């Protein structure tokens, strides 16, 4: 698609593009240089400020922060996924008085900021901030997982369920044995993408005073003095972003692998749903 938008560049266009690239690079580098210079004038890059990273206890604190972040994300994911499966089954139940209340609950959970749920659990139930962070993440992400898996089940060909019922499985058996396994496999990329969101959202624990990575940065900066805030924050942000990019890469890898190995391929993320395919384009006009 991209290459269709413009001609295959000839010598002149290539020259213009090269000049454009050089000018663009120079501009971006210039901006970066200006930022670095401004920071350097304030003594940000003095060795003294960065020397703290030679201290073991700084790394211990950072490590604790990373550990807290990852453990909250892992525990939340492990609880949220089965809960999401269950909510999904309730949401597509054939019984209206199960389906409709579940739908209301899911809409409620999806329309809520995660921070608000964390604060709610923290203040109303008086739990520790660790429980509050996990509860907030679990409630929100279970709702999202449920919607993703539901989209997966709906994307399956109707014949799958019909065949299941025909060979004498009950409705529930057909869901568990035939539809769910396929739906989960199809939706793997979206599910892993949601895991990245979950991992990112652990940083909201900062707001409810959970001792995750950002909180560790704040604590160290308070302890060592504000002069060290920038270096510590910089390193912590780099670690955070690096972890997230790794998980995102895994998502992309699963998507590629899935599309070649899974029968029927993997479906697109439900958030990026394009128009539903309609049989005839002219019919709608």
């Amino acid at each position: 698609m991209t290459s269709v938008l413009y001609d295959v560049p000839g010598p002149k266009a290539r020259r213009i593009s090269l000049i454009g690239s050089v000018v663009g690079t120079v501009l971006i580098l210039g901006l970066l240089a200006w930022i670095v210079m401004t920071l350097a004038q304030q003594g940000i890059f003095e060795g003294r400020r960065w020397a703290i990273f030679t201290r073991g206890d700084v790394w211990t604190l950072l490590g604790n922060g990373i550990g807290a972040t990852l453990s909250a994300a892992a525990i939340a994911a492990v609880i949220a996924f089965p809960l999401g499966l269950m909510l999904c089954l309730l949401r597509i139940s054939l019984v209206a008085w199960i389906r409709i209340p579940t739908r209301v609950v899911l809409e409620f959970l999806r329309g809520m900021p995660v921070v608000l749920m964390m604060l709610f659990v923290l203040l109303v139930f008086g739990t520790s901030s660790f429980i509050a962070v996990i509860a907030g993440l679990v409630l929100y992400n279970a709702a999202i997982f449920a919607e993703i898996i539901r989209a997966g089940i709906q994307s399956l060909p109707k014949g799958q369920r019909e065949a299941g019922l025909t060979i004498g499985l009950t409705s529930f058996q057909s869901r568990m044995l035939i539809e769910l396994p396929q739906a989960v496999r199809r939706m793997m990329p979206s599910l892993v993408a949601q895991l990245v969101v979950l991992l990112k959202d652990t940083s909201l624990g900062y707001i409810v005073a959970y001792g995750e990575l950002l909180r560790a940065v704040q604590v160290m900066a308070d302890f060592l003095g504000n002069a060290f805030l920038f270096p510590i924050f910089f390193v912590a942000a780099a670690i955070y972003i690096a972890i997230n990019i790794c998980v995102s890469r895994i998502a992309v890898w699963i998507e590629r692998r899935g599309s070649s190995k899974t029968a029927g391929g993997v479906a697109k993320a439900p958030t990026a749903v394009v128009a539903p395919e309609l049989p005839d384009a002219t019919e709608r006009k």
Partner: protein
Amino acid sequence: MEVIIENLPLYWEGLLRTLFLSAVSGIIALVVGTLLAAARVSPVAALRGFSTVYVEVLRNTPLTIAFFFAAIVLPRLGVTFQQFEVAAIIALSAYTAAFIAEAVRSGVNSVPIGQAEAARSIGMKFGQVLSLIVLPQALRTVIPPLINILIALVKNSSVAGAFFVLELFGYGRQMANANGDQVMAVLLGVAFFYLLLTVPLGILASTVERKVAIAR
């Protein structure tokens, strides 16, 4: 229950502030995001590279870090602001722009090749192809995902409440501290006002998805 009615003016104030933050950052993010998406498909390699790196990094940055950055690092660069709102708007729009760029780009990719080919064959240039033919169609396809991003933006603006901006979440926290015995009612009130914003947007998204979507 009385605590909600008593504090209705505060809720209202917070709701307006949340709406203001979301609207301003939403508009900035839409413009910047579309430009980034255009840069992502442009013939100039430097623009492509910059856009790719920006989107990759920002999409993988937790919002809290973006807020930290806007509140701590930017002032050191000489960008000072009187109010924390400005920092919040910078963080929110920079963060959301990355997601919008990604959505618009996938929209550009969903426009059939024939459209761009036809435009090219009647002699249009890159800018014309993009602005007259591809982007208008792409934007229609991406409207539902864009509304979903805006819903996320409304919810994300609550993070600003933790960075000294008094919006719905910020007021909610304040009221929860002031009325220690009725925390549950206060927070359910906040939740209700958030739903007041997000649920209509969600309904709008699914309606638009059914109606505006181009049939191909």
